[in-house]
């Protein structure tokens, strides 16, 4: 797909440094630092409604807790300093071991914080339930995600095409992802789009995401799955509707076919050197994977059992690129 890969770097750099300094002190100072650092892939620079809402919750919860945590730390240090043995002005109260009022306050403060945060957690969990469709004028685009050893397969069931290690989506359109694994557990995660979720064999999860802006967003597996784990990342290209349609047309025009036979080849442990696409997909393939009508991956077959099984690619990703 010409143009897409070349656009990666340019779009990456375009990202403005987000508005920082919303909450104060300590950890926030660290967060601010990281934002000013102009990092390209942070959850703190959301590119979609889900990650934006999650960042909001992160900031709100942090602000509520910092309001207690910062004074507590200052009080600890202050008390230690004031009651040092050499301070003649400190009033010693060696028998001050109980006070009902203090106890009340001491139990109330964390309880109030938790009531507050509990509310956020309850509302947030329901609003941002991964399986809950997003509000949008557009109908969601269905994408089926299969994690394999050690690559990602993205099937566009309605469009009849598939892509390996590159997710191309139209910006501004909600995505309905259905995820499974044809091997061990994986976690599908595009930090700038939001919510990560487990991909598990014999099961399918639902996840709704959306990329609001055009851009290239880093995606990865967030769960150790063997030797190819560090290579199991992909880029998500959010492009305009027109370019997306053009990509679909171009994809349909070339490349191999994804059917049972080619799928079985995918099951073998390997790291593809480049992303590539399938011009057509055998209908119902995803269901066959989920329902285990197609077998899961074999793992490191051919290795001597018990002794240093050979990983998938003995070639390092750096050499492949």
């Amino acid at each position, binding site marked *: 797909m010409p143009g897409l890969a070349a656009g990666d770097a340019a779009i990456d750099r375009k990202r403005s440094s987000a508005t920082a300094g919303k909450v104060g002190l*300590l*950890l926030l100072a*660290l967060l601010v630092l990281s934002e000013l*650092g*102009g990092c*390209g*892939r942070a*959850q703190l620079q959301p590119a979609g409604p889900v990650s934006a*809402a*999650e960042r909001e919750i*992160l900031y709100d919860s*942090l602000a509520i*807790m910092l309001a207690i945590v910062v004074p507590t*730390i200052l009080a600890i240090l202050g*008390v230690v300093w004031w009651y*040092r*043995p050499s301070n003649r002005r400190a009033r010693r109260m*060696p028998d*001050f*071991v*109980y006070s009902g009022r203090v106890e009340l306050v*001491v*139990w109330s*403060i964390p309880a109030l*914080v*938790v009531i507050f*945060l509990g509310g956020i*957690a309850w509302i*947030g*969990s*329901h609003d*941002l*339930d991964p*399986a809950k469709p997003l509000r949008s004028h557009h109908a969601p685009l269905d994408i089926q995600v299969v994690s394999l050893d050690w690559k990602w397969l993205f099937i566009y069931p309605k469009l009849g095409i598939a892509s390996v290690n590159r997710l191309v989506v139209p910006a501004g359109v909600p995505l309905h992802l259905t995820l499974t694994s044809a*091997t*061990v557990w994986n*976690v599908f995660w595009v*930090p700038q789009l*939001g*919510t990560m*979720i487990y991909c*598990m064999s*014999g099961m399918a*999860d*639902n996840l709704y995401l959306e990329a609001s802006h055009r851009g290239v967003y880093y995606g*990865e597996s*967030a769960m*150790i799955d*063997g*030797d*190819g*784990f560090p290579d199991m990342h992909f880029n998500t290209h959010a492009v305009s509707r027109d370019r997306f349609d053009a990509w679909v047309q171009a994809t349909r025009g070339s490349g191999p076919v994804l059917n049972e036979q080619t799928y079985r080849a995918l099951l073998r442990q390997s790291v593809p050197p480049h992303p590539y696409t399938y011009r057509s997909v055998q209908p119902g393939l995803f269901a066959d994977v989920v329902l*285990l009508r197609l077998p899961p991956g074999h793992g490191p077959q051919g290795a001597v059992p*018990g*002794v*240093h*099984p050979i*990983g998938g690619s003995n070639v*390092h990703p*750096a050499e492949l690129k």
Partner: protein
Amino acid sequence: MTLLGKLTWQAFPLEEPLPLFSGLAVFLVLIAILVWVWRKGHVPYLWREWITSVDHKRIGIMYFMLGSVMLLRGFIDAIMMRTQQAIAFRAPGFLPPSHFDQVFSAHGTIMIFFVAMPFMIGLMNLIVPLQLGVRDVAFPTLNSVSFWLTAAGALLVNLSLLIGQFDRTGWLPYPPLSELRYSPGVGVDYYCWAIQISGIGTLMTGVNFVTTILKLRAPGMHYTRMPMFCWTALAANLLIVAAFPVLTATLGMLLLDRYVGFHFFTDTAGGNSMLFMNLIWAWGHPEVYILALPAFGIFSEVVSTFSSKPLFGYRSMIYATMAICIISFMVWLHHFFTMGAGATVNSIFGIASMIIAIPTGVKIFNWLFTMYGGTVRLRTPMLWAIGFMVSFTIGGMTGVLMAVPPADFQLHNSLFLVAHFHNVIISAVVFGAFAGYTYWFPKAFGFVLDERLGKWAFWLWNIGLWVAWGPGYIVGLEGMTRRLQSYDVAEWRPWLLVMAGGVVIILLGILAQIAQIVVSVRTRDRRRDLTGDPWDGRNLEWATSSPPPAFNFAALPNVADQEPYWDMKTRAREIGQLVRPEPRYEAILMPRNSPTGFVTAFFAVVTGFALIWHIWWLVILGLVGSYATFVVFAWRDHDEELIPAEEVARLDRANRAARTTRLQERMAERESQQESHE
């Protein structure tokens, strides 16, 4: 089937120089030490006084030494990981994935099971019977078996360095990755059998200490007079008794899958890997508190002693401890909010997790009010306690942050999570262990550790913690997942370089601690603690000599208050002489030393090793051997030894004399002070 099962020459990493030489180096050092010990003629002494000892103090010290040695091993893994991630930017680094994955799995396994656990159980062993005012734990020989089984597990983990390989699936072997299909090697088996063997030891420790605390206390020591450390030890051991069978059963099911083709967790033939996730965390979350609660107890003791005040809100602290103990079983699902459970399930477990923060927050505030109005002496143990309070508050906050499910959707399995649990485990458990170590070292060995080097260690560890893991939070927020052997995201690089610097600072802290022990031992004659009470302590462990005699107390103390020793001391200072008159000394029966623990553990190692390599005849031999050891022990005739009254009198009189001298010195000091005031 061959004679040696799966074990062949291929099991030895003959073609991989790094594991080969590091493994060989470890074993050569070990063998060199053993030869040196043997040549110097220390073996009979070690056998008589330590290896076969059933004295809770000796066992406690051995637990702590095991933890220290394994801390070094686990820390080398940490250095390797930080170095790898610092250099593996668009490059393979020096560790291939197959080796890197073993390193992080070994690091986690060792640090939790063979460092944190032995530290906490060691300190409980050393101190709980002393604080309760009794002579030993309920089952002294069982205690020795527990220790040696833990050491057996640690040995198996280290054997994997040289023979075969270790687990490559993380410190918790999640299926299906840990199933035979995806991990055909012996790594997962090493993990499982090492944890099964040491887990049995831990479970027996739990039974032992629950029984000890519930049934063996000095006369008059009601529950609401027990020191806070005993309370937290009780809570932790109740958790062990309830949680460790879950671990054993879960790993047992995984082993059935791997060895005899069961399908508990395979995701095929009706198995379900999510079951493992739930079961392992049903143990795993209480485990967090099994480690943290005793540490909270240590901090309670230290803060109270060095503020010269009783613990503030003692009853509140008991409620908080027991609340944590119970709620810790109701939050396990927060380890996998991203597994796709519904919103209601997620938020209920999120809120339950937050509720644990309430009693924990109460504890922080109560320590604050313990210091408030006191006289805060900044000795090394107190420094660790203050460092803990500051760092743990921040770590607790990031933990509650992740208890909010939608926030966790972006933080789970990222370096933010890893930074969080290093933040809390280092600041609570490791600092707790170090606070307890510096605080109770004089009790165990009779001399005080060097303060200057202790303070160096404290500052280096604290700064190192934040330089190593502060950036961890940031890089996690930049989307970096855990356990990456290499990466190509430029934004992560600077932070990973800083983290590598942090691990160097912690290394300096560890070197300061090694220097501290060397210097202190060499100058021990100047550091003697003759009275048995070097810190002006408040609980019964300070009422006996340092180190205490085998029987702990010549006469069991009578407890009439929450701080019995402090009361005795205050009254003695009023009347100018020891409160308790010299008791009528009687001979004391103490349990006899027994090699049962050592021999059982030897056979456990044999059995474990044979199971890992499928050497079935050796499995049978090992099992028969350990059962025979049990039978021999059960049929013993002579299980106690009499310490004659003269010996009891001699030891106790020496301590009474030292205390009287100290008391008189103190009275004289006070008089001269009063005169100078006038």
